[in-house]
């Protein structure tokens, strides 16, 4: 079943459309990377899915429930960009408040994780460092035992070691509990390891929405003479072409190299960068298949 479905989703702030005509079908159990330039609509999309904003047009459903409904709120955890917490409470009071606000609460998980991170229970939340607050927010989000986790770049404030550890913990939750994750990220290098589904947003619209496997299988990095680069577009769908001297590097959506061109498998980095460079290129999901 699809963990996230949006149809014609749009959100307008004053005169500008932050999100326009979004169509997504993300299956369950995926770790979805949400990539795009700043202002592309990533935060808006995540906020709508979390129930923090209402769409201007179209619909969004998470786990089969309307986004923002009570059932969706129960099963979805979200950590917003601002890492929202009750900043004037102590950590243990925050946990107590979270316990009161939630039906499902794994107190052991929260306490164990915070003690392993050496986060003192008596500290004031507002006095913790940015990284510690991010860890706390993430702990609260996961102690709710959600089926879907939405993260808006909350790992940005973590040091490299902490980031590695948190990602490892998240991946284990995916492995053990079947958690689905959608996270927005600027770190393209870790996408191939961590993500199984890719969504690229550009100017408020969905540019790419497909599984990582299908993307890697269906694209090739071609190398060949620069003179032939122009003609190549007629033979295969070309995403981007870069010229370096007399050689051209081409990212193409094909599974066989055309004659005269050398092909090698493309890396996720190259693929994402290629599509980001060429906003008009699209890989869109087909119509929803009944699962």
């Amino acid at each position, binding site marked *: 079943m699809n963990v996230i479905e949006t149809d014609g989703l749009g959100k307008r702030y004053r005169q500008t459309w932050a999100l326009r005509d979004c169509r997504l079908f993300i299956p369950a159990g995926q770790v979805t990377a949400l990539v795009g330039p700043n202002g592309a609509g990533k935060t808006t999309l995540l906020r709508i899915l979390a129930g923090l904003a209402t769409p201007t047009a179209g619909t969004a459903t998470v786990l089969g429930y309307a986004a923002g409904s009570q059932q969706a709120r129960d099963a979805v955890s979200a950590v917003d960009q601002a890492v929202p917490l*009750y900043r004037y409470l102590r950590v243990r009071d925050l946990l107590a408040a*979270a316990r009161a606000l939630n039906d499902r609460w794994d107190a052991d998980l929260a306490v164990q994780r915070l003690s392993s991170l050496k986060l003192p229970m008596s500290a004031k939340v507002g006095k913790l460092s940015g990284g510690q607050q991010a860890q706390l927010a993430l702990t609260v989000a996961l102690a709710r035992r959600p089926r879907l986790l939405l993260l808006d770049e909350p790992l940005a404030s973590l040091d490299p070691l902490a980031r590695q550890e948190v990602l490892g913990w998240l991946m284990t939750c995916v492995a053990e509990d079947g958690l689905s994750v959608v996270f927005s990220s600027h770190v393209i290098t870790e996408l191939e390891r961590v993500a199984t589904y890719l969504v690229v947003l550009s100017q408020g619209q969905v540019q790419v929405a497909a599984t990582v496997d299908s993307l890697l299988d269906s694209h090739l990095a071609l190398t060949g003479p620069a003179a032939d680069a122009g003609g190549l577009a007629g033979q295969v769908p070309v995403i981007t072409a870069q010229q370096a001297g007399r050689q051209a590097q081409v990212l193409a959506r094909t599974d066989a190299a055309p004659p005269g061109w050398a092909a090698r498998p493309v890396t996720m980095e190259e693929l994402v960068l290629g599509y980001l460079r060429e906003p008009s290129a699209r890989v869109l999901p087909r119509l929803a298949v009944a699962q």
Partner: protein
Amino acid sequence: MTALVIKAIKVPRMTRVSWYKHRTLVLGIPGMFLFAAALLVSASLLPRHWISAQHFTYCQTYSGNDTSSRCLTENSLPTLGIFGEFVTYWRTEGAVLAVFSLAAVAGLFGGVPWVAREFEGGGFRFTWTQSVSPRRWLLGTFGLLTLLAAVAAAICGVAAHWWFQVTQFPLGGGTNPWGWESIETTPLSMASWTLLAMAFALLLGVTIRRVLPAMIAFAVTFGGCVLAAQTWLPEFLFRVGESSVRITDSANQTYPDMSYIAQTWYARPGGPKLNTMAVVEQLRGYSLAQEDHWLAQRHLSEWIAYQPHSHLVWLVLARNGILVAVAAVAVLASVWWLRRHPAE
């Protein structure tokens, strides 16, 4: 059935959240009312003790020149010495104003920051990614504070009424029961104004979402309400179901005691109302007998529109009912607004 049970369980949980998050306000706002009540009660104990110890009584009517009467009157104040000054001091309007303004203080410094800070500080994004819906959370926590404040305000109103009675002794009949001082120092009025203040705080906090602008807006709107309730509303409300009577002569009062005088005018039998100011100008300097003669010559009579004292209770009830109704509308508007703009 299960949903109701779950709802019932959630109420104490919301209480707990209120306690963790807003301990100071949950204690402070009702505490403010109760502290004022204690002050009022203690300020009233000594005068009451003195009055009963001196065997004075509270008299309905008094004869102005009778100094041997045991009725505590305005004229007996000089004989009371220092205590007379003490009692007079406590009669100042300022004290009543201070008590009355507690409701505004609760809304302005308690209610508005509670709601607006939740948005301004970003805490709402945490709250509304938990399992509780924004509406239920806001009503469960803020509603709790409002309930506590209203109850404490009612208690304070009882104390204020008790205290205000003492200040009426010297006048042997009290100030105008239709005046704002009498009406506002009652439990129902205090509770109604507190409910209105908190409801306005909720609405402005939810729509404006910034502490300082919301506080300014509160001061303007709530102040406007107070002004309207003390000036425009009584003129309109207190005339509902009024009676009119003709004054046969200046010496006799043909309307009941302690009535609310809505309007006086002069008219011929079956004729239109004359310009009162013009008539009064004409009668300037006349004695009562000359006035009666002048009016009889022109077949004019003085009329009075009044509201009997027996209606006071109902009208005050209606006045407070209007306040509560406006508060309810404000709350519904906040809930509606919250549904449309949950967390932006």
